[in-house]
């Protein structure tokens, strides 16, 4: 069962709404058998957050893990919580009886198709669920086994119980009707019987990927997902551990030091970086870490191992970049002049004030006679201001290894663009991005007001991979903080996103490459545009990547065969944008 990011988001919103709190970790989301967010269930899960102590409940829930009756216990746990939370909520939300009835009817119809499962726990949990659904419809439960009927009666709890009461009642019912034993009172043992059933051992081994307990699992009432997205904590640490397996050789601190030595000290305090990770690294990017730098370093950093060596190389590269620019300085200066002139003309033509004849305004004495003799009242001049508000431009350079042979050209062209924009007074920010060892690294060269820092662009240095989707998300996040009327983000890219940190998915992690990376970047570009940011691409890739650029940027890209044309292409894109303003 593939559950789309959108359905996950829907479920999260329903839970936050039910909890009246958008800051909580959603914890557990429910989808129907078609993979759509379940309206009723997610509202109930949200209400559980509001009425009960979620952490306490989850501690209890975790005692089901790795037990023979896990599926049954989980289903029973949620049926019980549904019942008591519904009793709490029904007076506050008159729609709930309606939704509950609809849910019960739909679910009974679904199960009427028959339950085919060789797992007795699943069969039993479905039988109890169906009994519960019949109760919802005001009918007898029709459970064939009187023991299970008693079990259901014991777990249909009312609203009078608090969290401890619910847990106590559930523990009592589970201990009475199953082999479950509360580990707290049974010396850590979770079940009455040891795992001796060969059938169950076989069944468990057969069904599961033993290393990764997938976050989305089938339960009697649909699909339940334990979520670590949106900054929440994972209930199944093994899953995250697997995602990070490739970095397991190094501790988090060591890895952070390595990245700092490699790229330079962070421009943010660790707390701020952590906040940014929480703000940006969710969904497809939830296992990624961030590093923001301006390339500042100390001598000790340069001496530390391979990372230090790479940083020394970057410093050397900056010198080479600058020297290369200076070797053809006259030509480059001319190009800057030309680009600045083009932009200035474009601004003058399209953003300059326009004079019009009008009925009011500044009197134009030379036309007064027209009012007297030909009854033309338009004897005034009126200025229609052309400046429709500020423009800012963010230039984001792909600094992945694939750009390595173009380093000097990109640096020179980036510098020329920034210089031309500075001359015409358009605020611009230039940064590069790349991904290495699970980090996405932003190298900030100059910010909007730093007109004297264009030379920093010569620090452009390429390494690692490129997680374009995350880069666009962060750049757009930065840009939302500026209040300019027209915010333009220009990305230099070969439209081949790829990164070692995979995208978490139910069916196992998917590599961040090819279609997955392209779709993710396209979604981020779309989101940025929704926020009023103009996203344009200067495409440097090959013919076979053309479908990618179309998918990600639609028609808003320009292709350049040679990077000598980069500044020209950017100039053209900006001109077009100014014309549209």
């Amino acid at each position, binding site marked *: 069962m593939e559950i789309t990011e*959108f359905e996950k*988001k*829907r479920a999260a*919103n*329903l839970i*936050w*709404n*039910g909890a*009246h709190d*958008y*800051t909580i970790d959603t914890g557990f989301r429910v989808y129907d058998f078609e993979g759509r*967010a379940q*309206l*009723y269930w997610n*509202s109930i899960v949200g209400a559980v957050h509001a009425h009960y102590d979620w952490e306490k409940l989850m501690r209890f829930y975790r005692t089901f893990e790795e037990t023979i009756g896990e599926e049954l216990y989980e289903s029973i746990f949620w049926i019980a919580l549904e019942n008591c939370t519904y009793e709490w909520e029904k007076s506050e*939300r*008159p*729609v709930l009886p*309606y*939704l509950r009835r609809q849910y019960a009817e739909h679910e009974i119809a679904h199960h009427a198709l028959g339950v085919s499962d060789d797992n007795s726990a699943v069969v039993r949990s479905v039988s109890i669920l169906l009994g519960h659904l019949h109760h919802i419809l005001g009918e007898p439960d029709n459970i064939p086994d009187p023991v299970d009927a008693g079990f259901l009666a014991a777990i249909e709890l009312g609203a009078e119980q608090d969290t401890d009461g619910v847990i106590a009642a559930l523990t009592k019912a589970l201990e009475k009707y199953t082999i479950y034993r509360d580990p707290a009172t049974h010396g850590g043992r979770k079940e009455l019987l040891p795992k001796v059933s060969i059938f169950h051992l076989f069944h468990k081994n057969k069904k599961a990927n033993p290393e990764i307990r997938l976050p989305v699992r089938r339960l009697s009432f649909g699909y339940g997902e334990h979520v670590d997205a949106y900054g929440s904590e994972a209930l199944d640490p093994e899953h995250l551990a697997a995602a990070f397996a490739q970095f397991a050789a190094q501790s988090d601190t060591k890895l952070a030091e390595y990245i700092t030595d490699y790229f330079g000290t962070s421009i943010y305090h660790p707390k701020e970086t952590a906040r940014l990770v929480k703000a940006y690294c969710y969904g497809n990017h939830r296992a990624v870490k961030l590093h923001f730098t301006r390339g500042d370093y100390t001598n000790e950093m340069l001496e530390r191992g391979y990372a230090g060596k790479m940083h020394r190389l970057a410093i050397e590269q900056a010198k080479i970049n600058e020297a290369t620019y200076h070797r053809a300085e006259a030509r480059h200066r001319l190009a800057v002049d030309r680009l600045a002139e083009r932009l200035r003309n474009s601004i003058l033509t399209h953003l300059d004030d326009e004079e019009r004849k009008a*009925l*009011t*305004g*500044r*009197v134009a004495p030379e036309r*007064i006679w027209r*009012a*007297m003799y030909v009854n033309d*009242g338009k*004897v*005034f001049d*009126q200025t*229609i*201001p052309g400046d*429709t*508000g500020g423009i800012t431009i963010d230039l984001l350079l792909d600094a992945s290894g694939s750009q390595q042979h173009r380093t000097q050209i990109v640096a020179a062209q980036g510098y020329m663009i920034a210089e031309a924009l500075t001359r015409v007074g358009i605020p611009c920010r230039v940064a590069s991005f790349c991904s290495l060892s699970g980090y996405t690294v932003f190298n900030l060269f100059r910010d909007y007001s730093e007109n004297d820092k264009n030379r920093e662009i010569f620090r452009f240095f390429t390494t690692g991979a490129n997680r374009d989707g995350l880069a666009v998300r962060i750049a757009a996040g930065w840009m939302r903080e500026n*209040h300019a*009327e027209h915010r333009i983000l220009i990305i230099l890219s070969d439209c081949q996103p790829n990164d070692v940190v995979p995208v978490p998915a139910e069916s196992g992690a998917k590599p961040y490459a090819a279609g997955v990376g392209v779709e993710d970047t396209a979604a981020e570009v779309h989101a940025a545009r*929704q926020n*009023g940011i103009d996203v344009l691409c200067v495409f440097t890739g090959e013919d076979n990547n053309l479908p990618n650029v179309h998918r990600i940027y639609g028609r808003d890209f320009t292709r350049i065969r040679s990077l000598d044309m980069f500044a020209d292409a950017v100039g053209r894109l900006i001109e077009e944008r100014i014309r549209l303003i």
Partner: protein
Amino acid sequence: MLDFLKSQGVSDRIITEIEQFRSYYQLGEGLESRIPQPQYRYYGKEVWEEAASALLSGENLLLVGPKATGKNVLAQGLSNAFGRPEWDISFYINTDAGTLIGADTFEDGRVSLRKGPILQCAEAGGFGILDEINMAKNESLAVLHAALDFRRVIDVPGYEQFHLSDATRFIATMNYGYAGTREINEALASRFMIIQMPVVSKENLEQLIRDKFPDITKEYAGQFAQLFEDIRKMCESGEISTKALDLRGLLAAIGLMHNDLPVLQALDLGIVNKCFDDYERQLVEDMIHVRFPGDLQRSAIFAG
């Protein structure tokens, strides 16, 4: 309106002073129709007291707050309570001195001043509502500086100096951080008393709905108010834009239900369809579906 203020618990002293203001400043001829008759009332004793006190002391007001906090409802309510004619001036990016103060025009064979809304308001002792003041550029607002501070004059180049009537007040509104808005500069901000408008509470919203639809049941007035809260929270958490956070749309939708349109259809028209993005629309629909049953009848919502 003064009775309403009394019912809101606004202090008697303030109400008495408003009454004195009204009787002292007589209304010019033909201006009665400019006194607004608000369709909605602003609920909130503290804000009323702050705003009325500031205006009674001769100050101008700047109401700052996000969408649907009742900035314009309060501004209208103030004009009505003080019994003053109102001029509504919407600011936009190209607002300039000519738009505000006035410009030359040609009449009867001679050039004369065609007075802009600010000048008319200033002379008539009106209340000028400067709507979304931060949409305009600060430099174009500089012409208002002398009118807004202790000088209370407007100097129109080529014409005489106009003195503001003692009854004239300006009430500006702004939505900070709204797309395309600018920072308001200190020179302008210092000429206003600033009220940060609180988000309308659920109780006040419920009251507002019941005012507008007296036959609505208490239960569903509460549910509509709660729906608005749900959408606001979703906006504040950045899940959707503020397009669906539309109080006018919600009230209009309830009006449609009153005229027998099914509840979900009415909410589609008033709220959901304001979102042009499919994704946003689905999220807002979800919020509605977990509040209102699909088979909800008019008789359950309205008692009459």
